[in-house]
């Protein structure tokens, strides 16, 4: 058993992190908030870098890597708050021509009948004919909703897992931002991170990140539906609670539009819906207890 990143996996993660830092850093993120719309140039660059074709075999023009690698890449996307229907396009790469290279943007009808980026997508997976536009809470995820969509349908496991990986990445970002702020912001003559009340918020942020990481990576290795349900629950918790605690650590600044914290929280909310009903995941995990117990 060697449940650690291999050298290749580390290199892949660092490569993606570098690419996203160059192409979608803090300024690009704010620019995207001010001018919503999908950056097709960036999308094609991601395609050229293998972002969408990562798991396709080399015969299919892909990179031939596995789920663990996909999870690492989507964690980085989540950390960068990279916008767009990334998971849907990735999963369509073998099926819809042009998706793998980033020429074609694919979206899908997800949990609760939600469709992200409907107006900008070239292809929609699922029936979105009657979709109604929502005023999306997340400035970087335009949303439509299909009325009467069957909410009991469980999203595809890979869809859920890659979404959980993005949640993990956003949780990492929230933790990093909270710690950075706590180290530098001074009140009462010292950094606020010296106060236990703040320090302990930061510590719990990290605990949730590390727990979610173990769950997401393990689910990527086993691809087991129960592991994926566990990963989803813990990654949602890490991202949503992490962003809220990060906001709290930032104090009044955290409540402003200028701070990036709200972008983490809003994206985490959108993805928590994308994973389908939380109750379903919990019920799946509960049911497994009886199966395992016999």
């Amino acid at each position, binding site marked *: *058993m*060697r*449940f*650690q*990143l*291999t050298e290749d*996996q580390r290199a892949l993660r660092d490569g993606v992190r570098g690419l996203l830092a160059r192409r979608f850093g803090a300024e690009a993120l704010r620019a995207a908030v001010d001018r919503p719309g999908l950056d097709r140039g960036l999308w094609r660059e991601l395609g050229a870098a293998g972002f969408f074709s990562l798991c396709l075999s080399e015969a299919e023009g892909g990179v031939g890597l596995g789920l*663990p690698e996909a999870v690492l890449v989507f964690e980085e996307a989540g950390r960068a708050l990279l916008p767009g229907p990334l998971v849907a396009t990735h999963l369509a790469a073998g099926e819809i021509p042009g998706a793998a290279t980033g020429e074609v943007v694919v979206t899908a009808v997800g949990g609760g009948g939600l469709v992200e980026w409907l107006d900008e997508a070239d292809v929609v997976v699922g029936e979105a004919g009657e979709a109604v536009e929502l005023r999306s809470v997340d400035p970087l995820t335009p949303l439509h909703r299909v009325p009467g969509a069957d909410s009991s349908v469980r999203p595809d496991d890979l869809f859920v897992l890659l979404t959980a990986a993005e949640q993990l990445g956003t949780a990492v970002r929230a933790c990093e931002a909270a*710690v950075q702020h*706590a*180290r530098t912001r001074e009140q009462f003559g*010292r*950094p606020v*991170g*010296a*106060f*236990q009340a703040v*320090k*302990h918020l*930061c*510590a*719990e942020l*990290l*605990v949730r990140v*590390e*727990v979610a*990481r*173990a*769950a997401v*990576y*393990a689910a*990527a*290795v*086993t691809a087991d539906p*129960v*592991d994926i*349900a*566990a*990963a989803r*629950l*813990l990654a949602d918790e890490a991202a949503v609670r992490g962003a809220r605690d990060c906001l709290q650590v930032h104090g009044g600044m955290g409540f402003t539009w200028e701070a990036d914290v709200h972008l983490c929280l809003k994206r985490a909310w959108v993805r928590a819906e994308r994973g389908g009903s939380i*109750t379903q*995941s*919990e*019920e*799946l*995990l*509960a*049911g*497994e*207890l*009886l199966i*395992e*117990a016999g």
Partner: protein
Amino acid sequence: MDLTHSPAEEEFRARLREWLAKVLPTLPPKPSPDDWPGRRAYDLGWQRMLYDAGYADVHWDASPTMRLIFLEETERAGAPYVGAGFVGLLHAGPTIAAEGTAEQRARWLPPILRGEEVWCQGFSEPDAGSDLAALRTRARRDGDEYVVTGSKIWTSHAEVADWCELLVRTDAEAPKHRGISWLAMPMDTPGVTVRPLRTLAGSTEFAEVFLDEVRVPVANRVGEENDGWRVTMVTLSFERGTAFVGEVVACRRALGEVAREARANGRWDDSVVRRRLGRLNAEFRTLWRLTQWNVSAAESSGGVPGVGGSVFKLRYSRARQELYDVAADVLGPDALDLGRGWVLDRLSSLSYTIAAGTSEIQRNIVGERILGLPKG
């Protein structure tokens, strides 16, 4: 990232499983919690069986993965817990192995492995619990002996221990972390008095130990004089890093039992109960994955567990309390009956966020040593 085991590891698992199936039915009945001589005999008897079968040193010499397999299989089979051997096998032993002289290792390690001697831990004091370095028990040098006076508290197994891993202050003038030494003290030395403490669960899990002019040979000091804090940190990293690993498997087993009980008594029909059980399943599955992650990290960095243990302990101690709260919900009014299963476990679980470093101390460790936040 890989979760599969090598052929050698799988062979180890199969052999262990076969051995457990053979020997567990031959064990005597478990003694009651307050029967300390009985508990000592039972726990040491189990250690002796492990020794004879070649598994005694699995906590020390086996690879972390082998150790993980050992804990997984013994828990799954319902084998006895390390019990009275805990401090010797998981604290004092590893510390002596890492910091002791050749003579000290030869004197103390074999009896621990053979299940012949019980150790207890003399770290905490009435006025120095979480602030461990504030300890006041004094050791005055007199020739080739230290003369120790003071008191210790929360000393598990003190009633039946042969040895105590004792922290004493050997330099009262030095800064509080610098004047401490680590001694091995025989519990039958004149001047040692043990007074059992009764826990809220009604049992006597630990004791106060009073030390009045107790003479301990200087040769019993592990590490340099006044270097005991560093030696202690070695001990604590073992405690926080790996000591709770086996219990995750036990929790997963207990969770399955709670689910079966819920199905039997109709509480399973309540979706709130099912959802809480489902969440706990996610929690304990993941704590096991986190364990595998930490073990793999330790394996690639040379074996000594690091501060990652604090992350694990924070989450684990809370999850375990939640487990027994859900169990109480499943039991309903029976949760008020000490004769029912899990009720004592529920009471005992209240210590998990306090013992071996409170959750608040663990958060300080995570905040300062992992995240690099300034000290308060």
